[in-house]
């Protein structure tokens, strides 16, 4: 008991210090100081993200990060510094990500969990917009010879237990009057192993995760993500509350990527557009009008974003295109002018 008391006393003292530190930190840093100033003074951006996911964030043998989410962080670094390399990428495990964002350990989350009311309105953080439209789908083996989720009948479906995924699957099969056997798993790794071992015929989860899983399978081409989506989910960058300037910088980095694709400015052609006549292109390159000052950015910030990482379509192709060997369809992540949902207000 005595030992416990001493330990207890130390824990309490340590906790009181921690309590004070946590309480004071946001007052001293994020709430009053501008994140942009902090990032500039530090000389690099600190970008957090959910667990590594092939295509979205992965590390190579040299320790270098790449992926769609990593590219978004690089785009923000390009907007701030004119240099997409001035960023440290931190995959953050578990559900402490919001707390780390809140205390200033990272400047933004390139990806967290799906955008919901709870996550958007609690935890002192906000989503700036949707950068990736997702939704629950089905992954099957090609040998099953189905091309639509509506053909799924009398088979075993692996799904995570305890969340909305299993409810969505039940609802889908009930609505379609189709039969299936639920094979439930507590975590994603077990589920992957089970699917590979043939303990189920299909997996149902968010498409971004199905895609990452497919990419990690020994023979990705023999698996197929069916086109139907049985839930509505979107992902996007998250910033802490209390700093409108930073909210705007991250939001307009996303909008710039989308607008650049729409007007046809690419990393490949940006060097040869100085004589372009189209006003929308000239505005984006900083040749007409002055944009960015209201956010504390240089007028060439959009040019730097596109030169640094390309436009949204280039970013998508680099990470999910045919060259990856495991192509993902644009689908809802196509521009609004091409049947998708991606839309950004204009640079005007």
């Amino acid at each position, binding site marked *: 008991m005595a030992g416990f008391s001493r*330990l*207890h006393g130390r*824990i*309490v003292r340590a*906790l009181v210090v*921690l*309590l004070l530190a*946590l*309480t004071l*930190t*946001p*007052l001293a840093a994020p*709430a009053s100081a501008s994140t942009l100033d902090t990032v500039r003074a530090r000389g690099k951006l600190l970008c957090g993200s959910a667990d590594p996911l092939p295509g979205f964030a992965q590390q190579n043998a040299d320790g270098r990060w790449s992926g769609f989410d990593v590219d978004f962080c690089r785009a923000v670094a390009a907007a701030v510094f004119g240099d997409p390399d001035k960023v440290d990428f931190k995959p953050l495990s*578990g*559900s*402490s*990500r*919001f*707390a780390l964002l*809140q*205390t200033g350990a990272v400047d933004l989350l390139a990806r967290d969990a799906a*955008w*919901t*009311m*709870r996550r*958007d*309105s*609690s*935890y*002192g953080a*906000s*989503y700036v917009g*949707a950068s990736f*439209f997702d939704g629950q789908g089905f992954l099957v083996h090609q040998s099953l010879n189905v091309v639509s989720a509506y053909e799924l009948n009398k088979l075993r479906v692996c799904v995570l237990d305890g969340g*909305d995924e299993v*409810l969505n699957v039940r609802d889908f099969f009930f609505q379609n009057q189709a039969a299936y056997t639920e094979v439930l798993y507590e975590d994603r790794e077990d589920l992957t192993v089970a699917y590979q071992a043939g303990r189920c015929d299909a997996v149902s989860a968010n498409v971004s995760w199905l895609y990452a899983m497919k990419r990690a399978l020994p023979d990705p081409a023999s698996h197929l993500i069916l086109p139907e989506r049985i839930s*509505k*989910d*979107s992902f996007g960058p998250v910033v802490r*509350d*209390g700093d*409108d300037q930073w*909210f*705007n910088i991250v*939001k*307009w980095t996303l*909008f710039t990527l989308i607008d650049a694709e729409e007007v046809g400015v690419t990393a490949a052609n940006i060097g040869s557009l100085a004589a372009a006549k189209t*006003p929308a292109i000239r505005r984006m390159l900083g040749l007409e009008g002055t*944009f*960015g*000052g*209201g*956010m504390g950015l240089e007028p060439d910030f959009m040019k730097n974003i596109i030169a640094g990482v390309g436009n949204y379509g280039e970013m998508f192709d680099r990470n999910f295109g045919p060259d990856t060997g495991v192509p993902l369809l644009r689908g809802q992540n196509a521009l*609004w002018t091409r049947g998708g*949902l991606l*839309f950004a*207000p*204009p*640079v*005007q």
Partner: protein
Amino acid sequence: MLSSIADGAPAGATSLACGFGERDGAQLLARLLTAALFLSLAPAAAHADTLADIKGRGAVVCGTASAVPGFSAIRQGDAWTGIGADYCRGLAAVIFNDPDKVQYVSLQPAERIAALTGGRVDVLADLMPWTLLGDTEQGVRFVATMFYDGQGFLAPKAAALRTARDLTGKAVCVEASSEAADNAAEYFDANNIGARLAPQPTPDEAIAAYAAGDCAAYAADLSVLAGVRAKLPTPADHVLLPDLISKKPLGVVVKAGDDRWFDVARWTVYGLLDAEELSVTQSNVDEMLGSDNISVRRLLGVEGDFGVEIGLNKDWAYQLIKGVGNYADVYDRNVGDQSPLKLPRGLNALWSRGGIQYSPPVR
């Protein structure tokens, strides 16, 4: 330990009241960290608290400067109509369970942003074009796109034009030296359409020239064209061509620097859209309280307590839909089929029905 904070609802200040004595270390740590996080969040909200001001005052103060039929707030007898007015009524329903607790303040266009940032009004009922400069240089935040507008063409039905391409060799009336004139010229040029612009000094003169038959079409934003058509002698004799040659998302704006109020304003728009997607309407909302659908139950506050964290009641969306309806109800009433404007949904259809209106879920 932090996971309990990040996953669950932020705990209230009651956590502070727990003694240090009897708790085991793990639980104590969790409670202290919860308290710390809660305290650390509190100061940010203290700077500006529009929601508290509104509750204290007993009404949402809605500023309006433009008078675009169907889109902003327009007085008709004792009632105010328009998407903007319905949005203000929606906010009042969400906060007070009473859509009538709105005070309108008429403003000049030049003063409306200052009225908003200075706190004279809580929100503007005018739908404003969301642009980079508008979003980043005025001290306001665009909440969401309430109407995807863009430039189109109005043409006589009898001319049987199918698309803007059929304007080749014809005159198009437009206001001189306007954005509409620039857009049209750029569009015809880029698409090799040999149409001739017939610029008129003012919009009224352009409309008069079109009505007199001097032009094969009139070019302006869809929101304007629909209003123009409604005032022509026989509106049904005129059609909107399917082409959209520019994009102009229109949205409501709130003052920057108040994240909680932004959340309330944002989720009021999303609530309208989610309700339409889940087929919860003003006329069936009471019946829907008994729905088995988990998404409907969450939206209406039957399950969970969404909204409480931003200072609303958990039935905020029920009150919203009861008070003003879902997005389709608001759209149809003000600018769609049930209005004189008769605008098709187009881009403003839900994402699940061919449009791009999309909202994250109440979850």
